[in-house]
């Protein structure tokens, strides 16, 4: 079996940003994404219900270059005012050429 090593970028952010982030990721080159409803806590306090605004986790398998772009984009546009964390790590993907 042949794998391609790509990057899995994970963003956890306020749920209100979900649609906007999804669209922007696509524009930045992501070919697909997986979304999970999550709750959490961090420097901006507890985010655990629709009242406080829960969080969403967006994961996307992308090429290292796209990963770089996504992380820079999120840092630039969302770090200042929104509850958000972003990180990445390499994963071995089957049929990996589909995602670059």
């Amino acid at each position, binding site marked *: 079996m042949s794998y391609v090593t790509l990057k899995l970028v994970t963003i956890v952010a306020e749920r209100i940003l979900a649609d906007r982030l999804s669209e922007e990721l696509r524009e930045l080159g992501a070919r697909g994404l997986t979304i999970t409803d999550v709750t959490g806590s961090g420097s901006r306090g507890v985010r655990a219900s629709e009242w406080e605004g829960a969080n969403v986790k967006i994961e996307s398998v992308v090429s290292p270059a796209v990963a770089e772009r996504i992380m820079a984009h999120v840092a630039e546009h969302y770090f200042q*005012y929104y509850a958000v964390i972003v990180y990445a790590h390499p994963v071995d993907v089957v049929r990996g050429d589909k995602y670059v």
Partner: protein
Amino acid sequence: MQPLDILLANLLSPIVLAFVLGVIASVVRSDLKFPESLYTALSIYLLFAIGLKGGAELSQTPVRVFLGPALVTVALGIITPIIAYNVLRRTKRMDRANAAALAAHYGSVSAVTFIAAQAFGTLNGEPAEGYMPALVALLEVPAIVVALMIAFVRSKRAGSWQAALHEVLAGKSVVLLLGGLVIGLLAGKDGIEPVEPFFVSGFKGALTLFLLEMGMVAARRLRDLRTVGLYLVAFGVLLPIVHGALGVWAGTWAGMSIGGAAVLGAMVSSASYIAAPAAVRIALPEANPTYYLTASLGITFPFNLTLGIPLYFAIARWLAL
């Protein structure tokens, strides 16, 4: 009934008691937790049901009767955020973004406060006009628009004005309330009869469950009280009284009944926590959500639910003398 008896009757109604139970559950750190989808389902149901009933009533209301209250309501939706913004800026306690954010919340309306006021009127023999839900729909949007306009006119903002406008107008509370209203209007009183057991008879009970959840949320908010400070507590109690009195007076002036004017007062005094927070988070991300959520959910809502509503009824009765 004497004023004190009325107050007591309000405090002992299931919806107020359910709210208190929610607060207690949160304070004793109970593992009681409403699944998020139950909260969402209840809010969809409540907003749509209010609209539906209001629309069916409106279909039987002559335009001439409805016009005065409608205009008065829109006017209040424009004036109150301006009042709120100026109070906050002139007392020099909030920067522009936070002042505009709070103004959007206090100009708009809390649907649950409206329902509680309506129920209070019915129980005490002073029911409000049937078309009131149409006024809720009219009061919801203008204030948010006005407040965001103030913010965007005064300085360049981080957020997006168009995105926020879309968030309000296509937001779920407007879609459900206005959508229900139009459906009720088109279907008419006879038309909605088959769905009445679900949307009308079940309404108060569903509201009780919803208030249980709101009590838990409000209590969590109260933990932030120290952060927001005494100033915001005073603001969250006094401004609603001012707005409420203004609303009652305007309603009376427009020819509404005692119940109608009092419920309008409660609406005007209330602070939004469904439509406004979503729009504000998008348009004014630099405003601190702790301020506006704590003020509207943790301070103003409980105040209105317990003391405010009876107060607005007392004012309405006094104005009608």
